[in-house]
């Protein structure tokens, strides 16, 4: 019985080729784009964020060998494929308009005042095609054009403002800024008010909890430890 060497017993990694800024690298299959870039030695200080698919910082555009189509995804969520030609978007240029939400109404006129370029939408659907969150971007812009603020707010709930839609848009709309305004209008004017929240805020302003909080602050570490150990825990 011959002993195998460490080299022979090491599990063989399947390696795939990816291209970062045009240069070929061999990386183990199964890594995300982000991990693959760090594997080959890149230290990312831009175009990276929560690493959990929620902040929208790591937008990536890529093509595959022999395929004319343009693909997009978040670097922290997308697994690498053999032959990926990668481009990271560290930043998407977009100016956010300054507005006073108290002066606006939840209708088309308020949105077009600050983002008039939404009237240039040609319904090409490029925005929906590149969205990594499967938001129906074109439908949301159309709902805004019709004045249906509520529908647009619901459709864009999952938007993480990664900016891929705005980079592809031929009408130069910055979708996520428009959606931000729409959701704010919805939240302020259309969404149902939460009565118990308003009541609680009133109680706090009236000082109902002032005494209890002051006592707690002045109690000291020994008291805190005791209160913590004796706190109510649900079974």
């Amino acid at each position: 019985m011959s002993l195998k060497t460490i080299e022979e017993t090491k599990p063989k990694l399947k390696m795939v080729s990816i291209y970062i800024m045009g240069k070929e690298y061999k990386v183990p299959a199964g890594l995300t784009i982000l991990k693959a870039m760090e594997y080959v030695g890149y230290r990312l200080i831009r175009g990276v964020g929560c690493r959990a698919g929620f902040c929208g910082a790591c937008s990536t555009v890529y093509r595959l060998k022999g395929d004319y189509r343009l693909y997009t995804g978040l670097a922290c969520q997308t697994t690498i494929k053999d032959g990926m030609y990668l481009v990271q978007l560290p930043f998407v240029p977009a100016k956010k308009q300054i507005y006073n939400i108290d002066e606006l109404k939840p209708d088309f006129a308020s949105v077009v005042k600050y983002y008039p370029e939404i009237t240039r939408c040609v319904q090409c659907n490029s925005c929906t095609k590149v969205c990594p969150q499967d938001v129906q971007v074109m439908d949301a812009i159309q709902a805004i054009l019709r004045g249906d603020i509520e529908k647009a707010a619901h459709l864009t709930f999952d938007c993480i403002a990664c900016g891929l839609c705005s980079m592809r848009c031929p009408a130069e709309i910055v979708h996520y800024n428009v959606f931000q305004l729409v959701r704010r209008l919805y939240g302020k004017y259309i969404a149902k008010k939460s009565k118990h929240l308003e009541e609680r805020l009133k109680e706090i302003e009236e000082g109902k909890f002032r005494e209890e909080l002051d006592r707690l602050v002045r109690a000291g570490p020994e008291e805190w430890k005791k209160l913590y150990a004796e706190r109510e825990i649900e079974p």
Partner: protein
Amino acid sequence: MIRKIDMELAKKVFEISGQNVYLCYQCGKCSAGCPVATEMDLLPNQIIHMVQIGNEKALEAKSIWICATCFTCSVRCPRGLDVAKVMEALRLIILRRGIYKLDLRKIKDIDKYPQIALVGASRKLTG
């Protein structure tokens, strides 16, 4: 003095619109029926003539941007020339160079217009 006729502009217009401007024999029905002719600096039949001889000043006319695309000229032309398409072709030559003829951010009281007006203007006056 013989002026050389340059067919480049007419060819470009044909490429974009499929219309042969040399059909026009200057009867003037298009200009007579045009609803905004009084506001134009050059009348539609004058623009067509300029395209026929290759005078690029047709592209600098205000007329092509005031055109309301009402199709009156097209249905009245006795030679079947779709004049509205020729106007559109001249507009597209400019728009495809990346020049916008409407600044959406500079419209006064933009929130008072119905979306039908704004979308129509955006489509015709911006690329």
